[in-house]
């Protein structure tokens, strides 16, 4: 199923689009060469959000990133939501489409969070079925993103990296490697982040995410990192990113900043930092 033409983002740096940055993006975007939007925010009938998106899509390749399909949910995918995703992909013709290895809907109630999954054969079969259904609906291959996790399931039988590699093999989907998620989840699982990268099927990766997180501690005093997207990327994540693209080669890289959103100049400075790491590898 996977066709290279389904992943058309340039191997430069993009940012998560926020409406307050519209003017700077159309007048002086700096080093930012593509944009990512959350699919669910562009499913209204009209008005400013769609008008801005139409305008931006004439100037930037757009990555559509779904945050609500519940690919890991026990129930079949919501056909209404599948139709909305198809409609968005049909009119926007984005450079790529991605979603998460997570669930977010239960018995029709949407929980607005990316909830974790046990890595078992049953989960694997279900996630692959859902990815097949999605890819058939939108008529293209998607990318699946590795999660931030805060806990583990006693019933898990597989490593997350093997689980994702097997999904990519069975469904032909690409993978979106969120390096901040790797750092957050590995820290929370008391594993080595670089081990995760070394076991990750990097050939299937067509996009990388970078973002900020928050640091807390659990009731035993162990580090507990929270994937908050509300701050700058921390140095260990920059270092992990450097190590990742040294192994994978250049990949389209996104700065995610979804809360506590800074002025555009600050966001662009983060993008420049990524570009400074990415460009020597791309050269």
């Amino acid at each position, binding site marked *: 199923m996977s066709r290279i033409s389904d992943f058309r983002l340039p191997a430069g740096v993009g940012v998560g689009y926020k409406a307050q940055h519209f003017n700077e993006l159309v007048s002086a975007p700096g080093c930012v060469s593509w944009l990512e939007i959350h699919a669910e925010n562009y499913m209204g009938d009209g008005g400013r959000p769609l008008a801005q998106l139409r305008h931006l899509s004439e100037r930037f390749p757009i990555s559509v990133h779904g945050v609500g399909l519940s690919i890991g949910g026990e129930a079949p995918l919501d056909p209404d939501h599948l139709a909305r995703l198809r409609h968005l992909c049909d009119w926007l013709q984005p450079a790529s489409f991605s979603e998460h290895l997570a669930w977010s809907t239960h018995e029709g109630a949407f929980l607005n969070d990316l909830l974790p999954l046990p890595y078992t054969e049953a989960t694997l079969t279900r996630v692959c079925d859902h990815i097949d259904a999605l890819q058939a609906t939108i008529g293209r291959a998607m990318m699946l993103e590795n999660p931030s996790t805060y*806990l583990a399931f006693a019933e898990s039988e597989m490593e997350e990296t093997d689980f994702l590699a097997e999904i990519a093999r069975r469904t032909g989907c690409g993978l979106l490697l969120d390096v901040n998620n790797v750092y957050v989840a590995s820290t929370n699982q008391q594993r080595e982040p670089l081990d995760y990268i070394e076991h990750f099927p990097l050939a299937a990766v067509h996009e990388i995410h970078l973002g900020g997180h928050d640091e807390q501690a659990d009731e035993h005093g162990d580090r507990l990192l929270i994937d908050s997207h509300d701050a700058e990327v921390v140095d260990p994540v920059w270092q992990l990113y450097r190590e990742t693209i040294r192994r994978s080669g250049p990949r389209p890289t996104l700065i995610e900043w979804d809360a506590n959103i800074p002025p555009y100049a600050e966001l662009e400075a983060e993008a420049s930092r990524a570009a400074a790491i990415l460009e020597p590898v791309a050269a």
Partner: protein
Amino acid sequence: MSQSAFHTALLDPATPAPEGLIDPKGRPAGKRFDVYRNNVVVSLSEALAEAFPVCQAIVGEEFFTALAGQYVRQHPPRDPRIATWGTTLPAFLETFPPVAHLPYLPDVARLEQALRESYHAADSTPVDPSTITTESRFALAPAVRLVQSLYPIHAIWRFTRGDGPKPAPQAQSVLVTRPSYDPQLTVLHPQAPAFLAGLAAGETLEEATPDGFDITETLTALITGGALTEPQL
């Protein structure tokens, strides 16, 4: 473990984290499960506060967060479009005893909901005002909403935003239009809702005009708000 057990524990803080969820040392997940609990309720409560900022300002941030927590548990979103969630908040507020002393609050929520719906409504092309005659028929633009209240909801809305005097008791009907991308509010004459209902039902301008009602002001608001479009045939 089933997602049902996970889901039940997520929304009930009194329930311990489900068995089988562990930390790296194999101990029960405890606070690690609370991260998910917190994400669900906080993210949805924040989304509700963003959608209903004036209601939040009326009851205060802390009170609104508690109210939103109840609403999230009783009326969670039914699909992932957060912009469409909250339509039942006004009705919920009507039956929520802690706000019974604020009888106008549900209608203020209706006004904020109308603003949200207008913002995301389909674009439309308004009729050319120079072509309007007493025989003209119209369809109201998709972004038009009407909120009628026994309370001065527009005055309360402005006052709460620090943008108007202390409201005096009166009924208010408020028209929401969207001339370009920003919804506008106009307080209507008490007879204007009947006029709008007539237009929406496909009556001509003349037929829709209630006896003795001067339509000038209302018609101006409709025209400048881009509210009048060609009728659907």
